[in-house]
């Protein structure tokens, strides 16, 4: 129940659209979204496939709760093999398009092959057709969105699209939906571009039903909403300040990645914080933040809608940026801010707009620019290499210019589009890439938050905070406070967060709900919608199953336990200031215990016993 039980399979090579039944046996093991799409991907592609070849597949997928009345149930994911990492990619996005897929009657869309010419997929309930994208290929995500709405004369059409960066080969291109939500990480947009697929436009009017026990579902959902409303984080903190409330927190605890992670505290943090977004600007007297915004069905509404001072140099004579649009989240604020040494809130908001407009992952983009700045300052890059750009830390104008170039895939922006791993290797300084498995770090220096070092090192999609967010416990005390500077107990903590998150990511719910919800709040909603068998224990086991399946895919793709590591800087160079001064990340103290808890070999390979127990083989 709750699933539509329908898959839409799109063969781009033959330009055909086919309806298939969802494999309900697999749904019983993997629930939906992240887990179920990973099962399909691992069954259907060779793990060694080249990510940008027609043999790779791209799956857009919802969870069983997506589109229902459950709070935060607006999520969808994109699952494929990543061109940035060579590992499994699963990028999760909110907005409204996940709900629309379900309303049109589809749990999942599987794209295979490569179209002979640029196309977009148009879906209206059961009807699906591939149409020429000649007129939108080369356009930004925002222009594409506008064109499709005009073309189909339907203001309620929901659109997911790539921008120009993906078409130009940027390896961390995102898929933008609803103008400013993104399946952001690991280059899922680049895979979409490689298939000559510009966009998906969908309109569904069928409603989302198939709820197993509607009365029980309504009760469980209402109970859940009450918990979110009464919790100070989800009821007040996130709606008021968004994720950006963390800027000052993480800076104070000394885990703010600064100037390519050379430092752990940024002197300009206050100026680019969630609090600062509320303050009137000295220039025009208006605050950066216009309002908060919610995705479909969300009763938290942490999204930011912001404006830039119309007189700011970045948007002078560019009236298209004068209005309000998707504002800074913490991850884009630190990556473009502290990591590049820039403390200009207007400039950061502008480059964040550009990430939405042209579909780029702000974490990887900001971190790659920071790595380039360090190489420039150390003489590994010169003005000839950069096309005349003075790539120095703290240079606001250079930041704006290089993001514009990357969005268009021009000049040195083309090289930034490689991501920091390839860029730093090319210029002889591989150790300056702050990545795991080729993906850049998010906003938490693991010298100051030890568990995050293990979470990054073992994340199946490369460095990521959303695969095991132990910050919640280590810094914020949710659900219980642990000491961020100790390693004891962190292996268990990381595994618990990883498994629980994999389950939530497979349901259609947002992981931010877990700041208030425990599995005891989530399970009754899934049980009422999908069946009594989805107990807390079953959900956590499904999470463990998903984690191991992703891991197995990566191993089969050629990754090894040796890839579960961190850059030398974080293992050898101690933090210089704050509570973590003198600390490196002690990954070696946590990793063996983690492998043991997972039931993996000493080399980090899932054993036959564990794969058997979980029903993977």
């Amino acid at each position, binding site marked *: 129940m709750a699933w539509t039980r329908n898959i839409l399979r799109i063969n781009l090579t033959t330009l055909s659209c086919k309806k298939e039944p969802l494999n309900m046996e697999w749904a019983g093991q993997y629930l939906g979204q992240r887990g179920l799409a990973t099962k399909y991907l691992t069954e259907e592609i060779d793990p060694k496939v080249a990510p940008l070849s027609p043999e790779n597949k791209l799956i857009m997928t919802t969870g069983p709760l997506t589109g229902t009345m459950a709070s935060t149930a607006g999520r969808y994911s994109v699952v494929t093999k990543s061109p940035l990492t060579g590992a499994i990619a699963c990028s999760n996005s909110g907005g409204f398009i996940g709900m629309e897929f379900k309303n049109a009657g589809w749990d999942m869309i599987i794209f295979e092959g490569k179209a002979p010419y640029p196309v977009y997929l148009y879906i209206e309930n059961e009807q699906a057709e591939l149409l020429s994208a000649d007129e939108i290929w080369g356009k930004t995500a925002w222009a594409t969105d506008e064109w499709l709405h005009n073309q189909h004369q339907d203001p309620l059409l929901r659109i997911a699209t790539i921008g120009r960066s993906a078409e130009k080969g940027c390896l961390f291109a995102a898929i933008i939906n609803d103008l400013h939500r993104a399946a952001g990480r690991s280059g899922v947009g680049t895979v979409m571009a490689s298939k000559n697929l510009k966009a998906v436009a969908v309109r569904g009017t069928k409603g989302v039903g198939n709820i197993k026990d509607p009365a029980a579902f309504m009760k469980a959902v209402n109970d859940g909403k009450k918990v979110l409303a009464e*919790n*100070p*984080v989800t009821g*007040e*903190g*996130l709606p*008021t*300040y*968004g*994720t*950006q*409330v*963390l800027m*000052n*927190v993480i800076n*104070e*605890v*000394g885990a703010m990645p600064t100037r390519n992670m050379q430092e752990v505290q940024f002197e300009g943090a*206050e100026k680019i914080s*969630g*609090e*600062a977004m509320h*303050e009137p600007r000295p220039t025009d007297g208006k605050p950066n933040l216009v309002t908060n915004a919610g995705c479909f069905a969300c009763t938290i509404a*942490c999204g930011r809608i912001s404006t830039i001072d119309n007189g700011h140099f970045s948007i002078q004579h560019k009236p298209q940026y004068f209005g309000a649009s998707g504002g800074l*989240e*913490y*991850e884009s604020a630190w990556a473009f801010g502290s990591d590049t040494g820039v403390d200009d809130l207007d400039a950061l908001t502008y480059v964040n707009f550009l990430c939405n407009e042209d579909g780029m992952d702000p974490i990887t983009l900001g971190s790659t620019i920071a790595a380039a700045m360090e190489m420039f300052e150390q003489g590994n890059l010169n003005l000839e290499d950069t096309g005349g750009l003075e790539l120095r830390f703290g240079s606001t104008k250079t930041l704006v210019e290089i993001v514009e170039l990357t969005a268009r895939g021009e000049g040195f922006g083309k090289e930034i589009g490689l991501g920091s791993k390839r860029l730093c290797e090319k210029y002889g300084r591989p150790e300056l890439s702050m990545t795991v498995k080729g993906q850049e770090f998010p906003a938490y220096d693991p010298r100051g938050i030890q568990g995050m070092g293990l979470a990054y090192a073992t994340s199946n999609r490369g460095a990521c*905070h*959303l695969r095991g*967010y132990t910050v*919640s416990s280590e*810094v*914020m*005390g*949710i659900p219980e*406070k642990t*000491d*961020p500077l100790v390693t004891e107990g962190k292996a268990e903590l990381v595994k618990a967060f990883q498994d629980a998150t994999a389950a939530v990511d497979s349901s259609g719910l947002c*992981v*931010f709900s877990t*700041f208030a919800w425990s599995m005891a709040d989530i399970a009754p909603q899934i049980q009422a919608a999908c069946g009594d068998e989805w107990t807390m224990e079953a959900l956590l086991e499904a999470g463990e199953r998903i984690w191991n399946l992703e891991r197995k895919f990566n191993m089969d793709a050629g990754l090894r336990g040796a890839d579960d590591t961190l850059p030398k800087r974080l293992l050898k160079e101690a933090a210089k200031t*704050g*509570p973590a001064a003198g600390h490196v990340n002690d990954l070696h103290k946590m990793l063996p215990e983690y492998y043991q808890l997972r039931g993996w070999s000493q080399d980090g390979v899932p054993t036959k016993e564990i794969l058997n127990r979980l029903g993977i083989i």
Partner: protein
Amino acid sequence: MKITVKLFASFRQYLPVENRAEGISMQINESTTPHQILKQLKVPIDQAHLLLVNGSFIEPEKRDQSIFKNNDILAVWPAVAGG
């Protein structure tokens, strides 16, 4: 002794507008506790979830103890989280 007090998120309202970004400097004596400072500033103690001194978390049971040294920085938030 002198300490700096910084309040964040919705607790900003308990500081004068001109001091919200930088925090305020307070003269205290050696016996002053974190909770006494919060009471003085009218910050609701039961909502003070994250309380750091020089960036290190202070357990709730230690917030009625004299823990300050000269030039310490006290930073306080209500319950917050992000991603």
